[in-house]
């Protein structure tokens, strides 16, 4: 195959951010093609760089390395043949529905009469006739996104990019809009040649796409591509559909590795530092209790998402945390509770704290944090100091998130405390290491 037969081709695209002397790879060496007539989906957990990739593809952002070919030609500036439907709709709140669509046409220099006629026609097609003079704030989320679609269609894009278009909508409107988008696409009434959609919702991806490009984070990269051969309209209850979803979950949830691999290394040491998953302890306890109620103590992760009514991204972060803390193991899309996990689920509030504390003491990042506090004067460190040290491993925002998670976990386990007004971390007296605690016991 030559590159010319593709509508779009990405060649060795990388995005690297520099922060001080440190470089962080947001996207690593992505190769991707998109042919005419294809509906492809970029799927991955949050932070895997899929939205960044979409911005690179539309030309809003230039990659640090590699190039984007559109119809065989390197892309320069914003691609005039592409358009985006945004997650938060990106409608101008001060323009009416009609004006929001018209302004896209105005920017292309289309005269007023034609503009109005085309906007009317498009709004009619997405089912918004009668709402032309309304302002976006008067519409429901689903209707706002319809305006987003109409505006995107107005410029007759060859390549339609969708950035999590349904994730800000309620369940019912999202479902309705998905169907309408598929109908519009399969009817062939629109000049769009290909669709590229970004999502973190696994079921949505299997429901809509011809091809799923699965991405993972740290660094953001393409893990695998899956072709979905199911005919439309797809039945969510059909066994083939569920198989497919299960396969994707298995790919994304990964496989529990031996402990030393799973835990990673401490910040500043060679090797990969595992980020603390950004979850709350309540949610984790909820997951474990739910698993404990099952006789087998095992569940299909995909089913869990349905049962717990949480979205796949959130659930995967929880399973990752359970895995990291040794409360569960993951294999082939199934999660199984370990004996430790069972004990945790059944323990009292105080006992849970103790189990949790003993587990997070094993995590290199946490161990490192406790060690530096131990070594510090009066067992205290300022936020900025810790943040700077963590920035050797993580980008600034991630380092901040790591510290927020560490504070949350540390406060729960009473291992470390944080004083917000002074922005200081300090060790809880109980966590000060054995030598000093021994002296204190002697003193009593």
């Amino acid at each position, binding site marked *: 195959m030559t590159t010319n037969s593709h509508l779009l081709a990405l060649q060795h695209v990388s995005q690297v951010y520099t922060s001080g002397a440190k470089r962080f790879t947001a996207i690593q060496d992505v190769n991707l093609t998109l042919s005419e007539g294809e509906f492809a989906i970029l799927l991955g957990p949050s932070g895997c760089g899929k939205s960044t990739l979409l*911005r690179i593809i*539309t*030309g*809003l*952002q*230039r990659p640090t390395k590699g190039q984007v070919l559109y119809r065989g030609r390197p892309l320069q*500036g*914003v691609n*005039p043949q*592409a*358009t*985006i439907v*945004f*997650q*938060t*709709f*990106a409608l*101008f*709140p*001060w*323009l009416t529905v009609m004006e929001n669509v018209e*302004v*896209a046409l*105005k*920017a*292309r*220099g289309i005269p*007023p009469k034609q503009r109005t006629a085309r906007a009317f026609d498009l709004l009619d097609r997405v089912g918004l006739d009668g709402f032309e003079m309304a*302002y*976006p*704030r*008067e519409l429901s989320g689903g209707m*706002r996104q319809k305006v987003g679609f109409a*505006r995107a269609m107005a*410029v007759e894009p060859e390549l339609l990019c969708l950035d999590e278009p349904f994730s800000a909508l309620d369940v019912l409107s999202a479902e309705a809009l998905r169907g309408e988008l598929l109908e519009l696409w399969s009817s062939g009434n629109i000049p769009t040649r290909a669709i590229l959609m970004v999502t973190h919702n696994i079921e949505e991806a299997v429901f809509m796409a011809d091809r799923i490009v699965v991405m993972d984070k740290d660094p953001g990269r393409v893990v695998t591509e899956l072709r979905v051969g199911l005919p439309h309209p797809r039945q969510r209850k059909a066994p083939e559909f569920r198989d497919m979803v299960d396969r994707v979950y298995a790919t994304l949830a990964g496989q529990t590795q031996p402990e030393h691999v799973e835990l990673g290394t401490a910040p500043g040491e060679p090797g990969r530092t595992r980020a603390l998953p950004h979850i709350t302890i309540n949610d984790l306890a909820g997951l474990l209790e739910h698993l404990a109620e099952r006789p087998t103590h095992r569940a299909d992760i995909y089913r869990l998402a349905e049962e717990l009514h949480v979205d796949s991204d959130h659930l995967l972060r929880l399973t990752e945390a359970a895995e990291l803390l040794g409360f569960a193991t993951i294999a082939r899309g199934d999660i199984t509770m370990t004996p430790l996990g069972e004990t945790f689920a059944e323990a009292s509030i105080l006992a849970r704290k103790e189990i949790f504390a003993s587990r997070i003491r094993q995590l290199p990042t946490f161990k490192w944090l406790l060690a530096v506090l131990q070594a510090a004067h009066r067992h205290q460190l300022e936020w900025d100091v810790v943040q700077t040290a963590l920035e050797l491993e993580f980008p600034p925002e991630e380092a901040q998130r790591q510290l927020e998670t560490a504070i949350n976990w540390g406060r729960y386990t009473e291992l470390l405390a944080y004083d917000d*007004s002074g922005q200081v971390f300090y060790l809880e007296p109980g966590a000060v290491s054995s030598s000093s605690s021994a002296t204190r016991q002697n003193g009593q």
Partner: protein
Amino acid sequence: MKPSPRLFKIEQPALRPINWGDIVVLVGVAVLVYAGVRLALDAPVVIKGPMISLSPGALPWYASLSIGRMVAAYALAMLFTLLYGSLAANNRRAEKILIPLLDVLQGIPILSFLPVVLLGFSAILPGKMAAELASIVLIFTSQVWNLTFAWYQSLTTIPGELREASAVFRFNTWLRFKTLELPFAAISLIWNSMMSWAGGWFFLMAAETFTVGHRDFRLPGLGAYLQEAANQGNLQAIAWGIGTLVLVIIILDQLVWRPLLAWADRFKLEMAGGENPPASWLYDALRSSRLIDWLTQATWHPARERLDAWLLRRFSLRGETDPAKTIPLWPLYVVGTVGGMGLLYGAFQAGQMLLAVPLSQWSTIGIGVMATLLRVLAALMIALVWTVPLGVIIGSNPRLAAWLQPVVQITASVPATALFPIVLLVMLGLPGGLNLSAVLLMLMGTQWYLLFNVIAGATAIPRDLKYTTALLQLSRWRRWRTLILPALFPYIVTGAITASGGAWNASIVAEHTEFGGRTVGTIGIGASIARATSHGDYPLLLAATLSMIITVVAINRLVWRRLYRLAEEKYRME
């Protein structure tokens, strides 16, 4: 209930230590003042002022002159804002210089410039024009900084997706300005314009009435009318003058600002509708008028369409990710080098002049700064003592608030400088005379900022917390300490920042004045500046002006900015 916005809130740039950039800016300001003083050396010794007629028939003419000056200055300020703010927001390198510059400039007491500007202009321009131009420059400087900062802040806080949408849909510079940037900034620009106008009146009145020694810089206008009336003790004319001033301010409020606010409600970013949108009878009337509707359809719409089409062709597409257009750097360096050398030379000259100031005068300046500082503090304290209890009473009683707020607003809108001659008329006979009336003038100029903010803060205290303190049966004192004072703190700080700025400014006209043919003065930095102006003591003028600027900027940095941070971080209700 949604917390009420803090009024007259100028967004403060991030707290940062004083760095070399600030020093450069301050040196630049010093050189500017020096240049003014240098020009002033040639200022005529005697400047004749205009004849002011006290006939009520002259008032419409005077009022329109005053408004004309305000409009001219405001137009200049808007133009400056759009250019300066856009440059700062769109160019990283420019941002690094322009924002610290703005930060220092907005803290400088503007009225301290008045004598220098007036004298400088009158040396190079014919008398009347010099005073006119100086008043416009002065009003411009009082109006511009908060507008510029508001515009810059809006530009840098436009949501990423809206910006991306305008890039994906290929908006050019004009369309982006019109559809995205201007609407996004509209509400903030209108509020800040109202604030700028309120401040502008204060300085206009000061500029219209400025007289020192044989130099009469007065301008025909409302301010001069009031002063003349007070000078002659003509109570009837005083009443006419104040009536006209209040009327002008009310008319502007009703015919310009209210309709603008009502119209701008559509530019709110929140997707949910507001609780009580601003209303305006004029706006409602205009909107429901068939004639107006027909007129806009017939003339405005086609004209707008043509303008759009022309501007769309005129401006090219601005690519968000165009390979960073490399603007050649050498002109920048040349300008920088030449500017830097000029600055150094100016600083050297200014230093020479400062060295000529004898030590005894420096000590007078030092004492003056302290005296004025004490007056400012006294005015702030008095204002706090009465505004906090009253503000809380008004703020926690919605019915009272609805009734009192307009009254307070109108009273507050009368610029204190316009009333000053009248205050003098009453106070000069009393013991303490000018000393007392100076504090009173500062108080009149500043208390309203505090009162408005305390009212806003009191209405913003969540009802749940009030119930909780009632349920806990806290004593009155404990209730104030645990709930009311902490909740008010950010509002009080915001009000006090504006108030203290106003008080420093007032010192120039309050501490040394010509009244009824007499010259009265007291000890203070404002008095030093005014006296230097009247005696033509230029080194002293430079030294006093700079001392005042440096003191105020330092207090801003060391006290107010810190309190503001504390308020934002610790005492914010979310």
